[in-house]
């Protein structure tokens, strides 16, 4: 079991922390998720699906937690976003620590949409369902997250 834990813990921690933006909360979620998965592992028909099953538990728990937060505002569609100006590989000079930090500084909703869509491979329709928002809100929140990230990271280049 420890081998399985070692194999998945970092990825799950990253996934949860990108949603919750809180290390201690994510550690609790990870603990519960692994425990649940180990207790119910016999129900899993295909071993190969363990990772995606575990991730589903982690994501659901993380989303449940952020939705229960008092300061979690309902997500709205963000209008009039500027079209992105694509510079050539401007981001390659930025360290991953800085990128990670920039992601964590995104607003809760935008960060959750960004993580689910880009890093976890959710469709906007699925995100809309799990976050109780419309598909267009999910799309606009994603574009908003990218815009904010670009801004933050661009600033970091000149600091």
């Amino acid at each position, binding site marked *: 079991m420890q081998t399985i834990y070692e194999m998945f813990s970092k990825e799950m*921690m990253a996934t949860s922390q990108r949603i919750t933006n809180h290390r201690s909360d994510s*550690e609790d979620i990870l603990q519960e998720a692994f425990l649940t998965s180990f207790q119910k592992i016999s129900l899993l028909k295909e071993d190969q699906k363990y990772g995606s099953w575990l991730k589903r538990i982690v994501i659901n728990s993380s989303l449940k937690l952020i939705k229960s937060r008092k300061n979690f505002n309902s997500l709205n569609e963000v209008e009039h976003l500027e079209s992105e100006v*694509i510079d050539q590989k401007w981001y390659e000079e930025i360290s991953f620590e800085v990128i990670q930090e920039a992601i964590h500084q995104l607003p809760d909703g935008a960060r959750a949409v960004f993580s689910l869509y880009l890093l976890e491979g959710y469709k906007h329709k699925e995100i809309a369902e799990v976050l109780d928002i419309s598909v267009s809100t999910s799309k606009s929140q994603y574009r908003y997250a990218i815009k904010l990230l670009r801004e933050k990271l661009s600033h970091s280049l000149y600091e």
Partner: protein
Amino acid sequence: MNDFEKYILENKRQLEPKKVDPKVWLAVENEILKGKNKRFQYLIKALILGIILSFVAYFFYSNIHQNQPLDEERILAQYDLTQYNFTQQVNIKKQQLAKASVPQDKIEDFQILLQQLEFMDGQFQDYLQYIEENGYQEFIGDQILNFYKSKIELLDKIQKEVEKINYYENLQPSNSDKVEIQI
């Protein structure tokens, strides 16, 4: 998806933490061990309950078994002790005596004989019990054969006593009511 998004996606693993606090695994392991201990405790409880139920069932069965008369015919047949037809002889004699009656004031004369009969029957049950618990041994077979011989002799004696009393009663009636001998 633009190049920046692709870059993030391709380097997703770089965004993972270097390590997860070991306390998370320790907590998971601790909970797993607790669960195992719980299962072990349930197993022990089930085992203890099983043992208690077995004892209860054993005592219940033994009690019933003790209170029930031993199956005389079965045990005798098992060890070829029926060949002497003792049980048949005893039954015939008992039936004859059951029909016999004597004057009420003479019934006390039979008490010692009847008590002797009762004592012998008790001994016979002990022999059967011994066979049931320890298996058949020849000396017990001998005891059983002796028992039947003695019992038949005793029943004959009672029969003769009845006949003698009734003979004198016919000669010189006592005007006492007649009662049956309870065998």
